[in-house]
């Protein structure tokens, strides 16, 4: 499905609630962050106050503790979780609702998850990878030996909305990340119909040098400055 048309200017939204307001029931959401770093904390808070249900969430892990993604899980808003690491001991909220049969889980290798989203963003409908061959990850997958090596056929994994975090944006939606806070955010930006980026600061176009842009503006539809930059859900 082609991305929705969005202005190349005026991408800056007044706040997180406005930026997520049109996410409908049943949406597939790509949620950035890894190990509590690069998490769109304020957008997650807005999602907790937003009525959308029956969501599919694609994110690295099943949340830590009681905040962030765990709030949405507790609210019963997530129908299915696609992640690489489900049963961290801190993901007790997820474990509880999973054990109660209230959520569907698809656990996939982290690199395959990243590459499947990269494929969605890059117009590659499917690819072969050696990751997971001969393991549970190969179950129900098409297997093909290429160059003497067993590989699995993996399909592109796109979303309706990407909810991501960056350090800096300009008004056009160009993004810059800091340190290891990029993680899944740049690839998710490319893989969703609508990408919503929470950032710490917003600058004028031209303040980010062309060579310094990490995510080009074409991938970003909405930018919001995080209301509380000290929030840490550890999602």
């Amino acid at each position: 499905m082609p991305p929705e048309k969005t202005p190349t200017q005026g991408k800056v939204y007044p706040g997180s609630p406005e930026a997520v307001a049109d996410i409908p029931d049943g949406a597939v959401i790509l949620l950035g962050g890894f190990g509590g770093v690069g998490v769109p904390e304020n957008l997650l808070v807005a999602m907790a106050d937003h009525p959308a249900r029956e969501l599919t969430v694609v994110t690295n892990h099943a949340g830590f503790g009681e905040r962030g993604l765990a709030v949405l899980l507790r609210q019963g808003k997530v129908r299915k979780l696609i992640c690489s690491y489900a049963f961290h001991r801190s993901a007790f909220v997820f474990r509880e609702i999973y054990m109660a049969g209230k959520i569907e889980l698809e656990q996939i290798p982290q690199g395959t998850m990243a590459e499947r989203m990269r494929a969605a963003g890059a117009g590659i409908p499917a690819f072969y990878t050696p990751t997971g061959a001969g393991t549970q990850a190969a179950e129900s997958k098409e297997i093909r030996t290429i160059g003497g090596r067993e590989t699995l056929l993996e399909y592109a994994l796109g979303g309706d909305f990407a909810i991501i975090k960056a350090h800096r944006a300009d008004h056009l939606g160009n993004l810059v990340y800091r340190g290891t806070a990029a993680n899944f955010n740049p690839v998710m930006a490319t893989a969703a119909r609508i990408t919503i980026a929470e950032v710490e600061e917003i600058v004028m176009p031209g303040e980010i040098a062309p060579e310094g842009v990490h995510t080009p503006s074409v991938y970003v539809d909405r930018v919001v400055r995080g209301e509380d930059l000290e929030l840490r859900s550890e999602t």
Partner: protein
Amino acid sequence: MSSDPKLSAAALSPEEIARRVAREIPDRSVVNLGIGIPTQVANHVALGREVMFMAENGILGSGPRPAPGEEDKDLINASREPVTAVPGASVFGHADAFAMIRGGHVDIAVLGALQVSAAGDLANWTVPGAGKGGIGGAMDLAVGAREVYAIMTHLMKDGGLKLLEECTYPLTARGVVKKLFTDIAFIEFGPEGPLLREAAPGLTPDDIQRVSAPKLILPGPVGTYAAEG
């Protein structure tokens, strides 16, 4: 244009075609311009339209040609012409550029055409046996851009047709042309086939049909095909 004096007299110049195409591009589009007349389109997109031009050699937000002497040796478009970078531009390598194109993030590719078929097939990269041209990025742009605008003269220099039932030249992609701008007509491609939208001043739908192999659909009144609307 052909030897038909009526058609020749009515035909738009390349610059007029470029101006007409520029008018067709919606505000806030991301646009890739092919080599030749398509490149000229950028000159006619008015300021304030927020159109972003991207080139497959790795720039989003290319701006006008720099003044002589102010060229940056490291900044060109896919036609190998020096360009500038607008505020908010970004640069990247070929793998990322074609991920952007193939992934459907470019709204419009404006490509030169050698032939276009009734189904919107595009042939634009080579002439059989001529040992000319190359594929370049055309096949990727043709399948990757959300809409393809094609530009060509309506007829060959010898009067041969270029809007055909089926292309006879090697294809670039099947069924991708959404809008075709020739020197005498603007034709849109719907599920039913080619729709004649505009004819150059003084030409009738019959005049255009006479030099087009597929049956042209007339969805309504045919407008005037001109640089200015």
